[in-house]
Each structure stands twice: as structure tokens, then as C-alpha cells.
């Protein structure tokens, strides 16, 4: 396990630069100053039919200084990391705060947090993906692709892997200073079949996670097994009947359910959204603060937590981008809304004592905002296995893997598709369906959750590039969940929806 921040990041003048920004801004009148020195390296390799199509290796580094002056925010950033630039940015941020003051009717204040001086945190990974040669990465993806292409049922393949190393030094005017490094990876392989009636595809179900290149072996995800069965599953899907629209019991596999959690719970319980801070862009939420502790979000089987501490979670950190230590808390307890996601400003806005550590900025050029922690549906400790869940269904559909997703601006109405749709009759899988989408209203859907799988069904899924804010920011986030069965879900036929 890697437990050190890279030496070349530590060799940057982190303390001198952040000290210079803080002292300059304070002298210019700032009551609060925070400084982030960041370096994020993003790698991408895409193969088409086992041959390289897109390759990039991009580092985004720089310095961001945020201040509060007379209750107004100011922010400035630069790609240059130096003491002189830090001083200049501090003055620019203070000037921006003063310029903004006439437009700021709300006085910004932050809740307090204990001081953490000189703390270091490194995520749990084994192999830095940037230490692996480009050839080795290409060869691994090409090998997996070629195994698909050897099958008679696969006409084309696509494969891509994205890997990130994020390094941050944070310091603020209270005395907290943290230095952190985390690594994450997402790999997807897709098989495509071309037929007389059109084309069909199926993608691996492997989820993005806070691992290094060790993720691409078979220890943490069984790539060999998944690639071996993909061609036959795709062939079965191509030949499958188109779904008859209507109401079905649905067994949601964790590889699909994580995204429904993300959209209908994760975003809906961001308190900045719920009070309107995202009303122009990402939207608001039906789960407004007046409904806290009363809103019946779902069935009594529903227990959802937020955390920034799950091992290998994509949102997992030691400290957030406002110097708040990682925590875990309840969001939905026994089906009732009991918690929100907070940063220090939003916590103060609603008179909370402490932030739960959800501040994040995706770049030194962007301000930290409240971003999603790992939001996870808890398994039933005594719940059934996956096989027992299938056997319990008289007539229904299993949905595996995510594909299309869309939800409205208040997080009510959603529509999702998937990768695989298996028909279940009398407790047995009898074949696949195609052209399936499901559509529901959030509270109706979660209210219809009648079986929650046990710990053996639990999988950590997630998203690499969740968008929010203006200017736009992306964040990676995990969602753990068990398999779960939902009663009488509205299933659409996507071909019929197209008017064909």
C-alpha cells in the first residue's frame, strides 16, 4: 500500500506559498483565507477494435486563494505556484470581494472546525497508474478487446481507461494545513454487434473505484470472467424479444442501482441545492429543509448514509477542501429523511454547529462548493443472497449495469436504462429482454422497495465525472448498495417511445 505523497509535490514551496497568500490577504482586510495548491494528473487511453484511438496525459496544477472580506467572498487563481503569485492572487481575491460586496446581501460566515496542523493523508492504493508504462496499459486493454473480437457475435469493440492522481495542499487562516494524495481508476470494455435491424452493445459492469492499476488485474474485479461471458450475453440480447411495456417487479442489481441512488438521493440531499444555490443550473430538490425528519423518502427498509471515509470510495478523503475531517452520518433512516450534505458555509446558513465535510473543488481555478460524499444504501444485515432474491420473484425483470440516465431539476421524475435485462419467471431466469427503460417518481420508487439484499449482495459503484456548479465542476463519487427488489415499476419500451 502506498502511504506517502509524491516527493515532487512535497518539493513545491507549499508552506511558503500558502503562508504568503494568507498573510497578504489578512493584511488587506480578509477575515478568512483559504489556499489550495493542487496538481491533478488525468490519464486516458481509448482503444477501438483493439487499436489505440485516443490517448492523453494531462496535468492541471495551480494555486487558488479564497477570502472573505466584510462578509463577501473573493477568489483568484493562477497556474503559477510561487510566493509572488500567491501575494498577487491574495490581493486580487480581496479586491474581488470588495467589488462583489454591493451585490452580496447575505453575509457569508463559516461554522468552526478543529484545527488540523500539518496533516497528511493518502488513499489506499497499491500501484500508481502513472508508474505503469503506456505499453502495458495498451496491451492490457488490447488483450481484453481481442478476446471479445474473437467471438463471432462481436463485430466491434471499444475500451477505455481513465486514471487520476490528485494532490492537494490546503491551508487556512485558522492554522489548518493538510496535504493529501488520492488515486482512482475507471475502465470500461464494450462489445458491439451489427445486425440487419441495427446495432446492439453491451458493456462490462466493472465500477470506477479508488484503486490504482492493481484494479486491472483479476484480484479486485474478475475481468477474465466478465470478458468471457460478454459475447454470449450480447448474442442473447440481440436475439431477445423487445419488452412489453407495463408494470413489473424489478430486481435492481447494484451495478444499476448505484446510479439511481446518485441521482434521486445523492443530489436531492445536497443542502445547497435544497435551499436554491443551484437553482439556475443543476436544479433544486423536492427534499427541502422543512421536510427534515418528516419526509417519508422510501420504505422502512431504506437506510442511506453519507461518508467521506469508505475504503476505496471515490469521494473518500482525509480532510475536505475547507479543512473539515472526514465523517459518516445518516441521510435516510428507516425510510425518513434525517440528514443532508453540508459545507462550512451552508452549515452556517442553516444554523448547524459543524460541517460534515462535503466541500470540494475540482481544480485550483474553481472555488470549493458542496459536493457529494459517498452516498450508500445500507444492506439488510439479515437480508437474502442474490440467488435467494431471484428465486423469490414470481414474475419480473433483473436490470444490470447503467447506461442512459435522466432526472428532473427537483429530482422527482427519472428515467434510466441499463446494460442487461433478464426476465425472471417462477424464480428462474428465462432469458433476456431488450429496449427496456424504467421511469418513476423518486418517493414512489423508493416507497416500493420491498426486499433489500444482504451484505453478500453489496457492491461499491460510482461515477467518475459528476457535474455541478457554474463554472462547471466535476467530482468522482461512490455509491455502495445491495441488490434490491422494487414492486411494480413502470417499464417503457424505448423503440415504442421513439414512435417506431
Amino acid at each position: 500500500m502506498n502511504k506517502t505523497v509524491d516527493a515532487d509535490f512535497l518539493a513545491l514551496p507549499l508552506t511558503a506559498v500558502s503562508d504568503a497568500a494568507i498573510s497578504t490577504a489578512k493584511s488587506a482586510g480578509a477575515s478568512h483565507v483559504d489556499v489550495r495548491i493542487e496538481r491533478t494528473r488525468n490519464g486516458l487511453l481509448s482503444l477501438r477494435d483493439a487499436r489505440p484511438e485516443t490517448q492523453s496525459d494531462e496535468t492541471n496544477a495551480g494555486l487558488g486563494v479564497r477570502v472573505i472580506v466584510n462578509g463577501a467572498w473573493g477568489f483568484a487563481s493562477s497556474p503559477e505556484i510561487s510566493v509572488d503569485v500567491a501575494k498577487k492572487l491574495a490581493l486580487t481575491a480581496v479586491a474581488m470581494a470588495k467589488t462583489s460586496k454591493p451585490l452580496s446581501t447575505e453575509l457569508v460566515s463559516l461554522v468552526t472546525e478543529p484545527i488540523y496542523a500539518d496533516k497528511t493523508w493518502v488513499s489506499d492504493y497499491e500501484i500508481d497508474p502513472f508508474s505503469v508504462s503506456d505499453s502495458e496499459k495498451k496491451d492490457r486493454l488490447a488483450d481484453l478487446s481481442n478476446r471479445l473480437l474473437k467471438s463471432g457475435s462481436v463485430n466491434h469493440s471499444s475500451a477505455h481507461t481513465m486514471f487520476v492522481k490528485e494532490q492537494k495542499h490546503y491551508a487556512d487562516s485558522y492554522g489548518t494545513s493538510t496535504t493529501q494524495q488520492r488515486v482512482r481508476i475507471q475502465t470500461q470494455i464494450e462489445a458491439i454487434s451489427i445486425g440487419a435491424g441495427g446495432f446492439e452493445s453491451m458493456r462490462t459492469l466493472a465500477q470506477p473505484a479508488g484503486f490504482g492499476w492493481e484494479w486491472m488485474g483479476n484480484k479486485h474485479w474478475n475481468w477474465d470472467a466478465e470478458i468471457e461471458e460478454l459475447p454470449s450475453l450480447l448474442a442473447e440480447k440481440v436475439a431477445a424479444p423487445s419488452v412489453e411495456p407495463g408494470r413489473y417487479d424489478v430486481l435492481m442489481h447494484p451495478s444499476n442501482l448505484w446510479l439511481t441512488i446518485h441521482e434521486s438521493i445523492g443530489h436531492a440531499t445536497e443542502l445547497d441545492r435544497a435551499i436554491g444555490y443551484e437553482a439556475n443550473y443543476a436544479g433544486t430538490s423536492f427534499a427541502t429543509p422543512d421536510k427534515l425528519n418528516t419526509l417519508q423518502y422510501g420504505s422502512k427498509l431504506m437506510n442511506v448514509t453519507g461518508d467521506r471515509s469508505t475504503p476505496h470510495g471515490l469521494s473518500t478523503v482525509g480532510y475536505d477542501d475547507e479543512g473539515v475531517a472526514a465523517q459518516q452520518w445518516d441521510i435516510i433512516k428507516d425510510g425518513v429523511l434525517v440528514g443532508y450534505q453540508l459545507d462550512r458555509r451552508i452549515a452556517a446558513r442553516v444554523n448547524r454547529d459543524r460541517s460534515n465535510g462535503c466541500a470540494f473543488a475540482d481544480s485550483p481555478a474553481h472555488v470549493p462548493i458542496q459536493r457529494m460524499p459517498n452516498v450508500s444504501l445500507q444492506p439488510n444485515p439479515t437480508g437474502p443472497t442474490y440467488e435467494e432474491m431471484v428465486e423469490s420473484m414470481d414474475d419480473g425483470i433483473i436490470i444490470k449495469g447503467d447506461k442512459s440516465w435522466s432526472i428532473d431539476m427537483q429530482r422527482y421524475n427519472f428515467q434510466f436504462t441499463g446494460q442487461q435485462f433478464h426476465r425472471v419467471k417462477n424464480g428462474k431466469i428465462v432469458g433476456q429482454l431488450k429496449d427496456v427503460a424504467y421511469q418513476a417518481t423518486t418517493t414512489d420508487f423508493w416507497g416500493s422497495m420491498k426486499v433489500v439484499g444482504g451484505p453478500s449482495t453489496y457492491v461499491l459503484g460510482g461515477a467518475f465525472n459528476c457535474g455541478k456548479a457554474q463554472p462547471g465542476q466535476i467530482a468522482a463519487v461512490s455509491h455502495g448498495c445491495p441488490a434490491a427488489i422494487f414492486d411494480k415499476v413502470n417499464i417503457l419500451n424505448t423503440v415504442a417511445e421513439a414512435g417506431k
Partner: protein
Amino acid sequence: MISAQDLIEKITSAATCDDCIVVVRDKTQANLRWAASTLTTNGVIQERNVTVIAFVAMDGGMASGGVTRTDVSLTDIPRLLEEAIAAAKAAGIADDYAPLATNVSIGDWAADHVPTGPEVFSQFAPALGDMFSRSVSDSIELFGYSEHTSETTWIGSKGGLRLRKDSPVGRVEMTAKSHGRSRSTWSGVETRDFSDVSVADIDAHVRQRLDWQGNKIELPAGRYDTILPSGSVADIFTYMMWVSNARDAHEGQSVFSKKGGGTRVGEKLSNVSLQFFSDPEFKLLPAANFVGTAVSSPFSSVFDNGQAIKRVDWLKDGVLQSLIQTRATAKLTNLDFTPIGENLIMSVDGASGSLEDLVKKVDNGLLLTTFWYIRMVDPNSLLLTGLTRDGVYHVKGGEVVGATNNFRWNDSPVSALGRIAHAGSTQWTQPREWAGDITNMAVPPLVIKDFNMSTVSPGN
């Protein structure tokens, strides 16, 4: 910080590989964001990206590999080149290989980047403050965002490319809510420098729309004749362009694939004489007249850097004319090299008038404000799903008679091309969902017959 031009000269002259292209992008931005009629965030941003692309000749072709870094100093150059060359060698012969352009100069190479900053808001910000005050008095809450970005890109190569382009652009988005947030509307304005932004016009527009929402009419899901403002047209046809690469179509993986093989180029897709094109000479939307890309993808190739971009008709007189090509895919598909441009223009022959004029032509239908959360459901038909947002109005007898509920819709822009009932004048517009990505699009408002509103959404 070393100048972009000096950096490019130093890197290209140090490069030992067969060719080397360096792309430097300098960006400055100022932004303001507000919610509930008070400023929530702001920023002054400076960014630099330096991409070094190494080209290495191999038996039977050439390989390419690139690295992008932020603040590159002279001492970083040897390592950058080494990493780019290693990436090229690892990739092997590129499928998108085509001979590299040499000795092409376009634009004022020597000029500095012209930065933007908060001063661009010198007239806009006080007017915004006044609008905040008026809104508070009238129990209207304002939520929105404004930004101004100046971006300069230099592309230089060992083989003598010296290309430069500048893209100053800004926008204002305003969401207004009233009556306990039960009414909501939106307005978006594109601008080059904020001198033409009228806060008073934005204020008048959102107030009119909030007034229209005084009369609520519930309507069921179904197919409606639907008036799409230009921003909504831009949102769904942007999506169409994102699936318009020629190789996908040629290989049977696209809505533009012909059953049995080949592409649908030459097929009439629209029921009206519709033009959809990119053109660097289109004065309203300045665009580069050369290919400039830092990375190869299904849409562009690093080997094509410096190739000329001329007008490309994607649809001409309603007929699919071109798909997005690199030189390599043009050879593969046996079609013309039609690179993606930096602007998109749609017009319908003989169409004129505003959105309000289109309302007068609709007997019974819906007028939308924006689309939201647009995603692809079925790539075979390019079936998209999404929501209506911030105001849907019932139109009867050529007039808005009230506001109705939001809908989830499922429909295809390719199918919609064949159901155009009316069109208005082409205008520079701001998409809603893709506002951060698409800034150079001019399209008309359209009336689409039988648009599929799949279910009612309680979202407001």
C-alpha cells in the same frame, strides 16, 4: 511565465522526433454567480495548458503521442518531449495517420493574449444590483450566472505550423422564481464583451414569463405540436452532431448508418428545405479556418492540424450531406474530408420571424422555455430523453393561454427534422444544458409536430 510563442519555439527546436506539434492555450475568465438575489461565488481565473505531441515514423506509417501540462518552464522541456515520444512509441502506428501539414501561418502569431477580468462587468454588475433590488421589492428571487472568457490558442510545429486563434465569449443566465418558488422562468444571453447585454431586457422578459404562469392548466402526457425556442433547438441538435462522426456511421454504429452498409449521406431527412452548416466565414459567429486539436478522437485528428476548414454543409436542402471526418476516415468511408468546424448554423429557407411570431402560427400546442438533462436512450434512432424546465405554456389559437406542468420527453432530433411545421429567423443562441460547452451556434426557433411528451413531471 514564459510566453506561449517562446515556449513553442524552444520545444519544437529541441524535438528530436520526426515532427512535433505544440499547442498552448492561455485562458482568462471572470465570473459571478448568484442565488436568491445575492452573490454566492465569484472568480478571476487564469489557466494555461501546454500540449506536446510527438510524431514518430514507423514502418508503414507514423505514431503520435501527447502530454499536457500546466505551467511549463524551460527546464521541463526535455522531460515533456521524452514523455510524448514514449507515448507515441507505445501507441504504435496511428489509424488516423495522414501526412502532416507544414509551413502554414494563420493569425497574428506574435500578439499577446488579451486577458479579461472583472472590469468586463463594469456596467453589467451595477445593473444586476439594481435588478436584485427591484426583485426583492417585488418578491421575485433571482438565480444566475455570468462569465466572460478570453482564450487564445497557439499551434506551432517543427514542420513550420504557426497558427493562432482567439475566442472571447461571455454569457448571462437568469432564473427568476416567484410565488414561493411555484413559478420559475429562465433567460440566457450570449455576448462577446457585455457591452450589448441589456439587464432591463432580461428583467422584462422574465417578468412577462412569470406573469404568464398566473394561470395554471394541467395537461396530460401525449404528443403535442411544440414550439422549441432556439436554445432548445441548439441543445438537441448539438447532441445530433456529437453522434455524427463518419466512422461510426460507416461501421453501422450510428443513426446515420444505412441498413445493409454504408452511411445515410444523400438521404433526405427533413420535410423542409433546411440548411445546417459550419462556416468560418459566417460573420456573426467567428471561427477558426484551420483544424487545431491537441488530441485525436473520433471527431478530429492531431495529424490534421493546420488543414483548412471551409464551409461544410451537414444538411443541405434537408438532405444529409456530410458527416464529421478526419482525413483518415474520409479515405475509409470514401467521402469528402469534412472536418468539424467551430460554429454551427441552421436555417430554413423562407423562414422569418421571432418566437412570438411562431406562437401566432400554432393553433393548439406547447411553448417551451428550455430542455434539461438530455441523454441518449437509443443510439439506433438517436432517441433522446429529457425534461422541460422553467416554464411550459399552453398555446391555443395562436396565443399563450396559461402555464402547464413540466414533462419528461422521449424524442429524436433526427426524427424531428422530418416534422418541422414552422421555423423562425436564425439567431445566435445559448443552449441551456450545453451552455458551458457550446457558444457558437445560430439556429431558429422551430415548431415540431407531435413531439413526444412521455410523462408529466412534478418538478418545477
